[in-house]
């Protein structure tokens, strides 16, 4: 910022706050808020345009990388206000006067507009950065009534903790992967074990069954990704390239692509048929915990131990947006495609975002937990169905059912470990609603697979 621009800024503020209307507004604000908030308001709303007047080349560079930072649209500068080099004209009183008036009026209008917009906001959020203030509020959300969910079946069979879950498209079977290196196929209706598949040499960490192929894909801690033919029950393809354990896998809903992420903090996109890694998406700074594929942009969403959620542009093969709302490792998130929203879960809470734009919508209620005495509550898995219910399972065995719209918990509890297992083996590692949404299956540390259903009270 040059000296001249600083002077200009001073003048502008003077002009802005010495007009009678502005003074009245300011007084009203003053009564409401503290000095700090007031200052925030100034820097945030009225004077933003002043700061943004950078040399043309810098501005272009900024625009190139513009993302979620941009929320207040700058007034497009006139062609006259810039000289050949793209620098704003320093000389000339007239230009300065005109601009100051425009900024003043625009700032005022923004203030007024925001006051209307934010009238249902919490008082402490009024002057906070728009980005970090949730868009929705609990007060105007109506809580829908849901049925109680009860566990009605415990399936034993695995000899290690159950780490992965997937449903087949016909909803007849579901598949579980375990740290005993096996994949087991169960009948959903009867709970009978149908088949055990072996092939991985370390814990199976991710499973997905394709809707459009007779294939199942599995990923494992042994760095391998395998494609199983469910007609022959054999491995037909191997996707080689990950440098460390592969923790998560998903299949693209419309294209023949699978996406994997793992401990090497990369997200890899594979072509199913040719086994080629189409993209290696780098950007995460730590283990990738979950990836999710969508048919529309953003086509890939991933969350990571570096406490970020990233969306990826599949056409260009690079990171689209980075969400840094969490301060702890994000282990899981789930997407509601009908509402176009997703909720990410971390030890510091659950947060709801809307989808194409990834705006922060809402802070979702957390489970009751004494963080001081028991440490962080690690949320291992969350999943949702089409009825607006979200399930979250934690590492200490706590679970909860949420109403998606309002973000409130309507049922919660702690799992009881299977007799013969330790008290510490309560954790829920993976969970998934079935295709119809009226059955919930969870995989636990105590080697059990538990099936839940809603019951009328």
């Amino acid at each position, binding site marked *: 910022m040059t000296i001249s621009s600083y002077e200009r800024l001073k003048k502008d503020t003077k002009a802005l706050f010495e007009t009678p209307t502005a003074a009245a507004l300011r007084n009203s604000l003053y009564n409401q808020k503290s000095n700090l908030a007031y200052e925030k308001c100034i820097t945030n709303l009225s004077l933003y345009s002043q700061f943004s007047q950078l040399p043309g080349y810098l501005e272009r560079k900024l625009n190139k990388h513009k993302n979620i930072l941009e929320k207040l649209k700058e007034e497009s500068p006139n062609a006259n206000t810039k000289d050949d080099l793209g620098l704003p004209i320093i000389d000339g009183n007239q230009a300065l006067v005109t601009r100051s008036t425009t900024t003043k009026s625009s700032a005022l209008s923004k203030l007024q507009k925001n006051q209307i917009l934010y009238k249902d906001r919490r008082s402490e959020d009024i002057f906070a950065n728009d980005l970090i203030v949730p868009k929705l509020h609990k007060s105007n959300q109506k809580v829908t009534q849901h049925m109680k969910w009860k566990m009605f079946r415990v399936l034993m069979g695995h000899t290690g903790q159950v780490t992965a879950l997937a449903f087949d498209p016909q909803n007849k079977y579901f598949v579980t992967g375990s740290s005993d290196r096996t994949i087991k196929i169960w009948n959903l209706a009867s709970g009978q074990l149908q088949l055990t598949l072996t092939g991985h040499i370390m814990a199976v960490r991710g499973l997905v069954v394709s809707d459009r192929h007779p294939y199942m894909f599995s990923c494992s801690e042994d760095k391998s990704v395998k494609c199983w033919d469910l007609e022959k029950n054999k491995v037909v393809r191997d996707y080689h390239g990950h440098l460390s354990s592969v923790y998560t896998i998903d299949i693209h809903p419309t294209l023949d692509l699978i996406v994997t992420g793992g401990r090497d903090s990369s997200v890899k996109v594979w072509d199913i048929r040719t086994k*080629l890694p189409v993209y290696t998406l780098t950007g995460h700074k730590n283990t990738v915990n979950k990836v999710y594929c969508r048919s529309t942009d953003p086509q890939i969403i991933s969350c990571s131990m570096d406490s970020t959620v990233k969306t990826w542009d599949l056409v260009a093969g690079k990171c689209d947006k980075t969400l840094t709302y969490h301060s702890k490792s994000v282990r899981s998130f789930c997407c509601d495609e009908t509402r176009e929203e997703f909720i990410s879960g971390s030890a510091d809470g659950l947060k709801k975002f809307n989808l194409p734009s990834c705006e922060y919508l809402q802070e979702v209620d957390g489970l009751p937990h004494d963080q001081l005495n028991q440490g962080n509550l690690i949320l291992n898995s969350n999943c949702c169905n089409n009825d607006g219910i979200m399930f979250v399972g934690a590492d200490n065995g706590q679970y909860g059912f949420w109403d998606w719209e309002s973000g409130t918990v309507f049922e919660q509890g702690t799992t009881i470990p299977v007799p013969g297992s330790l008290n510490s083996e309560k954790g829920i590692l993976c969970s998934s609603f079935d295709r119809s949404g009226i059955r919930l299956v969870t995989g636990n540390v105590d080697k059990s697979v538990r099936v839940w259903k809603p019951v009328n009270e």
Partner: protein
Amino acid sequence: MSKEIDETTARTKHAVQKIIDAKLNGEKIGSSISGSHSNDPIYIRYTPSTNLLNQGSSKKQRIIKIVDKQEDPTLPPSFKIRKTPQGPSDEAPVPILHEETTAKLTKKEQKIWTIPPAISNWKNTKGFTISIDKRLASTVEDSERYEISDKFSTLSEALDKANKEAKEELEMRARLNQKLEKQKLLENQKKLSRIAQEARGIPGSRSSRRSKWEVEDEKEQGNREKDSAALRREWIRKERRRKAEKELHTGSLSTENKVKMLAKEQGREVSERVAIGVSQNKGKRSAENNTEEMYDSRLYLKAAGTNTRHSEDQVYDSALFGNTSAINDIYRAREPDRYKGLGSGSGSDANKEKRKLDKERRFDELSSKEPTGPVVFEKDTADKNISLEAHGLKTKKREWEE
């Protein structure tokens, strides 16, 4: 919605297919620059500068053909291919939109968490001087931890005291016991001496002789020196005679018996086998040729020893008491059959007789109790006092004799 999906799908498919095709064909993505590279020669019209022209070059303009030098594709690369370090990422820095959850420590908390440097009281290899407060800081916690309560000392004191008292008491008791025993012994001795005096009263043996001397002494006192000298000489003569007689007797005895006798005089009893200093080889060899003395065979022949010597450790060819092993010394009840035959050399008649008797079963009761074990001694049930007295008498006698 479906339209949007279709559109994005098509777009993505196109992009992905492009990459896949490129990868399948082994091409590098974005290697279009290499395509411009061709082997076609380039022609350049060259105009020399005016300075050179003045120096007298004949041609004004030239056309230069530039052709790439033919390269041997099999040659190793002339430049080392290095990986360039990754530059700054394209992405703009992302604003951090969460609060820092870890609060900063206050000074007080920091103080609590400070860990003093480890300072050893035993090692200081670099020889640094360590201030006393640093030493204290590193050890003060330990001293606090290992603080011993006063009660330990009081307990140990009490224990010591009790120990002392108990010892004193024991000593006293022992002394008292000793006194009592002494008293008893004295009484016993008095009793014994009385008995001995009574016994001395009986004539015979030395005691009477001694009394004779006493009488003689009394006579001496009566100024009869002549008689006393004569008596003394006579007594000495007697003694000498006795000694000579004894020597004569012992000279005729074998060494073994001599030793035995000596031992007997000293109050020891020596068995036949273990007469100290009298080795007697009673083995087979000695039985065969009694006159031959024991020699190590190696003294005479070198070769002879090789047969008998078994190992390096074996110094002598045969044991000195080889056949008189300890086994022979142990008492064993002999089998009755063998025992029977002992009396008569061949003993066939006697055996026959014995068998006959056995068959008759005349001594059923006796034969059932065959003497298989060692001889059993029965405990003496005689009056203790008397036995003690008898013992005392014996010992007294011996003492006196000596």
